[in-house]
């Protein structure tokens, strides 16, 4: 039993099921990120944890106590909203103290708690201001402060950084991570930004279409996506997915890929790969851009670097790297080359593919093979 | 243990029911005092009620009589003329004034108050002033004559065919400022960047308003329509104060007709029949509107 248990929870509006049976157990001190495109059910799940929406079937428990029918206020949770939801008519201190006031905490204690949290977040100088007088970043801090001051069992974050500009977003991301490490609080965090998910979380639940597609640590999710959706959604630029055919020769599996020029390239799978049992099968091969490099940039530790000669269609210099786009199996494939590689569109160029990082999917079920 | 569970269940019930409880007095009031009364009136329209409600049923007799009455036909025609002119002129004038007032006008607040204040006055108050002003003997025409413009003629209020238009003039005077305020609010709510983009695209001021601004005022138009329609239908004081329904019956409106049959002529049954027809016409216009508005907002 976890600290926060989501057990067979579902949510329906009339006949429309927006969240299918979901099971997640969150341990104390864990940072769980719910990530997915809009409409995937992640916010619904968060609202269900908060008690803002009822659970249709199933159960959500915090510290072993079922929360069904318990008011949001009585769940000992705090939430940071996308719009921050600061009460416009109250100043910062009043905003932060409101929840404590509602729970009957005497004023001296409230003031003390507010002062402490304000100090922690470095917003002490803002306490007398109204939300309207604050910058976006400041509002964000106040919203977090309002959650922190409650000292809840679980923090809920609903896309808290999406209204900030890029620079501030990165800063706040770091800050939230530091705060989590320092306070060791339990957090459920909703975002559609996979980088946020990967950087912040201890575990990620990738959601799509009302289903949890995969639940795992950031590394598991990134390296071993459970299906093509997770593979494509997590990582930027996203994983290359292109059709191939498995051929087994002498017990070793090879992926055969059609090239634009009419030829066929062969990429042997890494040793011990389960593909050997799939002779002749059509698959979708998934290889992340950083596993397709120029030959000198290939991972030296890898034992399965293979070369494909393919025509370069576009090059996209990005400062630290150059992304090189080619075509494999009829799909665009992006490789991540060192910045100083001399390559231009139209060249036929050797690509080094690290087959240790390759994954294969069933084209029909889109699930991972092997 | 059982008791705490019960209390909690009770609390939960109260908590869930609270919003409905809060809404229920208003709902009950409206159900009884609007819809109950509508049903009551509908029922009365089939009775032989005269001075007070009575409950002898007479079938469709009241409706048959109603449609034989010349004044009712006039009242309906007048409502169509008055209602459409009133709504159209108020909207056009309100929009024009709002646009003019939206050009960084000095003393905007002052002018706005002048345009708005008629809404604050009832026609019991301003009726006499208007009656004087429109009266050819002492009003505008007399003043023009005394200034030496002898051929000036403005005798609409005494003219059977034109009197209804004087009603429109006074009604527009009362409400157009309010409509102006609604449009002004709408104009102020339009995103600046869209306008800038249109200007960069080379739109003239005229095109800017016609193609970009006015289409965005649709919600304001809709709100104005509701307010104006409800005022047109309820117009009563205005008629009584200005013309008393005259000359003859030339400015009779359904509201004055209904009042006169229900209360002055002691033919409550016919009054109720006219009220029923009036309500059905209102419903025919308003229900689709309200329905579409609410559906959109969902």
């Amino acid at each position: 039993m976890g600290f926060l248990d989501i057990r067979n929870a579902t949510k329906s509006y009339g006949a429309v099921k927006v969240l299918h049976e979901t099971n997640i157990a969150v341990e104390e001190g864990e940072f769980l990120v719910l990530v997915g495109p809009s409409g995937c059910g992640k916010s619904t799940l968060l609202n269900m944890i908060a008690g803002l929406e009822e659970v249709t079937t199933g159960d959500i428990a915090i510290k072993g106590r079922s929360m069904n029918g318990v008011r949001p206020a009585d769940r000992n949770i705090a939430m940071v909203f996308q719009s921050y939801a600061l009460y416009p008519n109250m100043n910062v201190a009043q905003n932060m103290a409101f929840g404590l006031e509602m729970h009957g905490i005497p004023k001296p204690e409230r003031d003390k708690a507010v002062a402490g949290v304000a100090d922690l977040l470095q917003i002490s100088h803002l306490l007398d201001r109204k939300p309207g007088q604050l910058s976006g970043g400041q509002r964000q801090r106040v919203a977090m402060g309002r959650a922190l001051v409650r000292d809840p069992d679980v923090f809920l974050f609903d896309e808290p950084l999406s209204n900030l500009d890029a620079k501030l977003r990165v800063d706040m991301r770091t800050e939230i991570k530091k705060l989590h490490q320092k306070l060791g609080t339990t957090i459920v965090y909703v975002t559609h930004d996979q980088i946020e998910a990967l950087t912040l979380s201890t575990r990620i639940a990738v959601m799509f279409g009302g289903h949890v597609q995969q639940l795992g640590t950031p590394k598991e999710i990134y390296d071993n996506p459970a299906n093509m959706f997770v593979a494509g959604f997590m990582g930027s630029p996203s994983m290359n997915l292109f059709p191939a055919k498995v051929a087994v020769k002498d017990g070793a599996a090879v992926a055969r890929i059609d090239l634009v020029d009419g030829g066929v390239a062969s990429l042997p799978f890494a040793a011990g790969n389960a593909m050997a049992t799939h002779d002749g099968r059509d698959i979708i091969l998934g290889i992340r851009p950083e596993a397709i490099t120029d030959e000198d940039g290939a991972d030296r530790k890898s034992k399965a670097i293979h070369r494909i000669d393919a025509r370069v269609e576009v090059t996209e210099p990005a400062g630290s790297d150059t992304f090189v786009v080619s075509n494999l199996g009829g799909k665009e494939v992006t490789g991540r080359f060192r910045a100083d590689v001399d390559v231009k569109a139209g060249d036929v160029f050797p690509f080094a593919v690290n087959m240790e990082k390759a994954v294969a999917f069933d084209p029909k079920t889109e699930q991972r093979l092997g | 243990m059982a008791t705490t569970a019960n209390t909690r269940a009770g609390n939960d019930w109260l908590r869930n029911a609270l919003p409905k409880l809060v809404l229920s007095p208003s709902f009950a009031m409206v159900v009884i005092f609007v819809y109950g009364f509508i049903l009551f009136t509908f029922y009365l329209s089939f009775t032989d009620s005269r001075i007070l409600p009575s409950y002898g049923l007479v079938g469709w007799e009241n409706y048959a009589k109603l449609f034989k009455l010349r004044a009712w036909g006039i009242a309906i025609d007048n409502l169509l003329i008055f209602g459409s002119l009133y709504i159209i002129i108020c909207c056009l004038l309100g929009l024009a004034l709002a646009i003019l007032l939206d050009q960084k006008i000095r003393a905007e607040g002052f002018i706005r108050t002048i345009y708005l204040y008629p809404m604050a006055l009832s026609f019991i108050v301003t009726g006499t002033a208007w009656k004087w002003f429109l009266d050819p003997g002492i009003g505008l025409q007399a003043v023009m004559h005394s200034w030496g413009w002898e051929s000036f003629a403005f005798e609409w209020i005494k003219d059977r065919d034109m009197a209804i238009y004087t009603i429109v003039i006074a009604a527009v005077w009362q409400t157009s400022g309010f409509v102006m305020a609604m449009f002004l609010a709408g104009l102020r709510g339009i995103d600046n960047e869209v306008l800038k983009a249109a200007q960069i695209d080379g739109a003239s001021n005229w095109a800017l308003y016609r193609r970009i601004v006015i289409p965005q005022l649709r919600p304001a138009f809709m709100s104005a329509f509701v307010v104006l329609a409800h005022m047109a239908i309820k117009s009563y004081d205005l008629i009584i104060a200005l013309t008393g329904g005259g000359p003859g019956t030339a400015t009779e409106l359904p509201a004055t007709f209904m009042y006169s049959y229900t209360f002055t002529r002691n033919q409550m049954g016919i009054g109720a029949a006219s009220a029923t027809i009036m309500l059905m016409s209102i419903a025919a216009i308003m229900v689709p509107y309200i329905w579409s508005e609410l559906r959109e907002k969902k």
Partner: protein
Amino acid sequence: MATNASSQVVRTGAGARFVIYTLLAIFCLYYLLPLYVMVVNSLKPLSEIQAGGMMSLPREWTVAPWQSAWATAQIGVAATGLKPYFVNSILMVVPAVAISTVLGALNGYVLTKWRFRGDTIIFGLLLFGCFIPFQMVLIPMARMLGLMGLAGTVPGLVFVHLVYGIGFSTLYFRNYYQQFPTELVRAAMIDGAGFFTIFRRIMLPSSGPIAVVCIIWQFTNIWNDFLFGASFSDFDSQPMTVALNNLVQSSTGVKEYNVHFAGAIMAALPTLLVYIVAGRYFVRGLMAGSVKG
């Protein structure tokens, strides 16, 4: 005001501005004319009015008509002027407007933030209620007031105005609260605030602009109402409009037009005052909600 005005974008030349100001001035005349007639004639002796020339300024200025209308004009058997009725109107208008506004706000709050199955229909029913002609409800309403024991009382009048004003109050607040961020309500729920606490601490403090619109609307309508005021009041609760009507509509005898006009302006002063004082919040309030889709 931090709002966008299209005027910041649209540029007009000097000639155009002259035309604009001229047009605006002409319309000022149109709107002010009846008021001018009333004011000018309320300051003339009756003989000057009878001699004609309603547009001209008084040759002899006098405030006697005002004094008469306020304190000595014949309203009924007693020559009390409008003074005592003024109080009756205030006693009726203030609670009616206050309750109507608060109830409208609560309704709007429920209809936008605590939605439940069928709430749209209820709102539709409330809204359509605005369109019922008042002449129609007179008799059944009288009977209901009698049954409730409110006939001929100020609470009865307040109740009637409440019933037929609630539709518009609710409409205004609902449209306004619809744009009020629901996340704020949710945040307050998580903070532990209940239904009424959220309303009082979160919603109401932000409702200023729309409250102004609602109050102006209700105040104007209720203050100016004659039909209900005459029908549902008693000898000691007749409102100002009934008294004014008695002053102006007397059947025989010399019509003291100057006193009538003075009385008319007097009766209109409270509403005028409300418009002048609250007028600048009015457009802001309309903008904040009621005219947006």
